[in-house]
């Protein structure tokens, strides 16, 4: 129908399928990175959909996801920290690529929208998304949660 929806289909189809595959298999460190990437992919996808359907009010979805997605990852970083500390995840390339893609999508949409309140909202969403994702990725890799709680070792059964 239009290029925006095609772009959204490709983004969501490949990106979320990859995120689902990552979260379904492999060690825990890969799974948390995949969960973080699902936010990073879905948020630009939702923005593209809002443009494709010509409904600016759908941007609220991307805004809420950009806010709460990294919060969810921080929850995992905090509460699975003991297990992650033994084997911290490193996914600089994937995180950087996702952040770059998000920036490209936000900038393209800003150019199309033209100056105004809608553009400001898009920029806020983009800033929250990219900042949140980079930070959440860092929190997963970093020592967050290492000195946490009662010190009970986190065992898997």
């Amino acid at each position: 129908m239009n290029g925006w929806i095609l772009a959204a289909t490709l983004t969501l189809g490949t990106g979320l399928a990859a995120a689902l595959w990552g979260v379904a298999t492999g060690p825990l460190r890969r799974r948390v990175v995949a969960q973080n990437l699902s936010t990073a992919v879905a948020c630009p996808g939702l923005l593209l959909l809002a443009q494709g359907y010509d409904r600016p009010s759908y941007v609220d979805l991307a805004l809420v996801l950009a806010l709460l997605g990294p919060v969810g990852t921080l929850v995992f970083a905090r509460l699975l920290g003991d297990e992650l500390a033994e084997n911290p995840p490193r996914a600089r390339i994937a995180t950087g690529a996702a952040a770059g893609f998000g920036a490209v999508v936000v900038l393209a949409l800003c150019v199309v929208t033209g100056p105004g309140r809608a553009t400001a909202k898009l920029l806020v969403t983009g800033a929250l998304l990219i900042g949140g994702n980079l930070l959440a990725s860092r929190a997963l890799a970093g020592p967050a949660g290492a000195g946490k709680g009662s010190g009970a070792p986190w065992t898997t059964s």
Partner: protein
Amino acid sequence: MSPRTRAWLVAVGGSGLAALLVAACFGLPEFGGDSHPYGDRAVEASLAHRTANTIASVNFDQRAFDTLGELTILFAAVLGCVVLLRQTRDEHRARPRPAEVDPPVRRYALLVLPVALLTGLYVVAHGQLSPGGGFQGGVVAATALHLLYLGADYRALERVRPVGLYEVGDAVAVSAYLVTGVAALLGGAAFLANTLLPHGTFNTLSSGGTVPLLNAAVGMEVACAVVVLLARFLDQAVEIEEESGT
């Protein structure tokens, strides 16, 4: 029951259910069909009451009584959690050691906390106009508060979160919903009928009559409910320990 018998039971019951469900799928109206009599009437009724978001109109105007039922379930679930997760006599509170949080995470949490709270309030306030409303915004605002737990530690959250106040807020919000309904009764209309206030100008914050009021009540109820729920779970997971030897 042995695992073998149970596996058989699950297989037989599941395949029977699957057959029935598939048969039912073929009996449903065609996907994407054009016949939605209830939907079309709901849209007309919503526009007649000058509510821009039809879904909010269905929830807080046309089916407001149904939403009262949902609120009751929510309230009862929270009450159940509070009762189930209370501190019993053989448990004591152990102060957890302060968590060491990465400074960037702390800065991010403190920076995003007000933005997220504001977004939650925005989603609640614009419920009758754009996608959103009390249910969604309440959850966003309540989740935002818990950034304090993620950015600092549980004690920081406890300092700014008097749980008792939120429990009262939960009850007050449900009462506010009921009072709005009774006010319509006193005004000579049906319970929760949207006749109390002028319907206002289409697509402005004050449009929709009682829809914004009920929306705000639901937002407060959901936000308080989520805060109370998470408080109980955090208490259990982080602080409460059983006496040793039990």
